[in-house]
């Protein structure tokens, strides 16, 4: 069976997935620095080490993400939109809509039954409602972003976070803290604000089940539950949600090599 690799160079992290047949045999995730070419190489090397495989065994490497052109050793590049569609369909074949909230952007993607992109909408030049936004706001509350997932569940009187700008929202959060509001109430307000922004993107492409939530922010349980409540739909989330782009890239690479060699 052919071994293929997908490397996703995002704005905050580099991810790599090694796929053999439909099995993920290796993966890696690390923050990106300034030298994206090296980050990409490292991502592949780490995934190979985890899988106990050698570089020469990999038939094709495909790059995706904003830094996809830095995957210098790759054979193809595919946009992260195409890769998230493919990857989400691989993990949840009933997916019709993908919501991806990454480090610095949010996108809603409508896919067909084969996992091909039908339409997409993205936020514009702004980190509001993204992973970066949550990091900043968690920091303003004195938490690390990894700790805030379940916290909002205890909310009794959620506040309203009206600012959609990361910078202003941070001071809005600080002012709620100063006014003695409880962190769960503030977090519930934040999740409500982010989900509200995501909903407008989702509505642009049209919401229909199944909805699959991907990207780093989907690991936050509070966000997932808020999204489900607002959509009145269950939402698919995979433990591999941060790797969806890389999985999609690996799949695209495999299809293309198979197409080329056929």
């Amino acid at each position: 069976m052919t071994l293929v690799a997908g490397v996703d160079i995002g704005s905050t992290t580099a991810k790599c997935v090694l796929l053999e047949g439909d099995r993920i045999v290796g993966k890696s995730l690390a923050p990106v620095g300034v030298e994206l070419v090296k980050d990409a190489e490292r991502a592949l090397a780490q995934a190979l080490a985890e899988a106990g495989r050698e570089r020469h065994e990999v038939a094709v490497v495909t790059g995706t993400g904003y830094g996809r052109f830095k995957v210098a050793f790759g054979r193809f590049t595919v946009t992260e939109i195409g890769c998230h569609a493919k990857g989400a369909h691989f993990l949840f074949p009933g997916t019709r809509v993908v919501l991806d909230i990454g480090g610095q952007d949010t996108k809603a993607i409508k896919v067909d039954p084969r996992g091909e992109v039908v339409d997409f909408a993205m936020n514009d030049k702004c980190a509001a409602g993204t992973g970066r936004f949550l990091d900043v706001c968690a920091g303003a509350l004195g938490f690390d972003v990894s700790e805030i997932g379940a916290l909002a569940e205890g909310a009794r009187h959620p506040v309203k976070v009206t600012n959609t700008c990361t910078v202003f929202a941070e001071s809005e959060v600080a002012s709620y803290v100063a006014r003695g509001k409880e962190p769960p109430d503030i977090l519930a307000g934040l999740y409500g604000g982010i989900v509200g922004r995501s909903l407008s993107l989702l509505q642009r492409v049209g919401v229909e089940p199944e909805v699959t939530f991907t990207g780093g922010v989907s690991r936050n349980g509070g966000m997932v539950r808020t999204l489900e409540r607002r959509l009145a739909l269950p939402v698919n989330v995979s433990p591999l949600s941060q790797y969806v782009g890389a999985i999609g890239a690996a799949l695209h690479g495999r299809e293309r090599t198979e197409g080329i060699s056929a």
Partner: protein
Amino acid sequence: MGASTEEPSFLVSARDRQREMIEAYYADLATAGGAKRPVAYMLVGGNLTEIVRSFGYEVVFPEIVALNCAIKHVSLPNILQAEAQGYGLDVCGYVKNDLGLQQLGGQTPFGRIPPPDLLVCSFSGCYVYVKWWEALAEKFGCPLFLLDVPYLRDERPPTEDLGYIVAQLNEFIAFLEKASDRRFDPASLRRTLAHSRAAEEGWVRYLASGARRPSPIEAYFEAVFHMFPINVLRGTEEAARFYATLNAEVDERVRSGAYPVPEEKVRLVVEGVPPYPNYRTFWDFFRKWGAVSVAATYPKVGGLFDRGFLHDPARPLESIAEYALGAYVNQSWPLRRKLIEEYVREFAADAVLIHGIKSCRSFTAGQGDLRDRLIHDLGIPTLYIESDHEDPRYFAPAQIKNRMDAFFESLDRRRGGAAEPLRGAP
């Protein structure tokens, strides 16, 4: 990619000819004031060039000056100057370029733009125009004529609207007689309109060639460039001759198989004003994917000649009224949408690309709904991209390219196309 860096050899001689015409026009303008030739400022949409020229005026189109500034990368200082005067971030870039430029003395890399002796607000569909012309009238203290053109709501212009415009044109002629101290010469207007008609027919023929497969023309980027004679020099013999040259060249291209892209893969209908400060970069994003515009709405903002709104020397004022009503910029949204749907069918297009303008609250408003209707109701793949027609600060190349790549990639895959040689793209 090769195609993205090549200088297109396509339509080179017509392009050179046009460049000469543009240079001559601006050189002429620069001397107009000194030679005591009066200067009228006018708007492109449904303009009254023929009437104004028949009274001996030189015509300046500040929108065209603004887009030329943007293409030459000199719009930002003008915009900043206007902002320093208090015009906000969300004021139309055309307006800020013009008012900033006037404040800075009117000097551009293509010549000095003389101040107006007369202001003709020939189109009223965008409230900005009226305010803009009022600001100019206040600054230069010159007479202002406002033509009120109702939006076109039905495909056939209503008789009462036509009558309303013709009555205003008669007032305009009386106004010009007074302002210029010259008598109106109907015979001269008819001659001018005959030249206009010849140019319009040539332009229509050029645009129609986009229906061929592959298309021998780039109906957005190149057509936008070739709008200059039809909008600015209409009514001159020179403009009519230019389109004859252009069409001869298109015929030659068809014979020799020289097309805008080496291999036509995607046929597009394009809507919206271009990002002039990044014209070439934006065009490259298309060419890389073998995408060609086969029809576009923006080259018709001045006049929708391809739908029969042509000048007619036998019915001078009536045909001018019809033309002004029918200009694309003056069409209501249902008509604009219908035209785009027709273009998709008639030109066998695969998709629609919309470029929206951040600082435009008029012509751009409604394009989001257009996108939704094309995708959700008609199943036409459509991409909406936003930047600005004047302000380079709004153009985010990486993000725009990413969206365009994703769009063309998905089109390619849905059609089961061969893998794009993606590696190494810039």
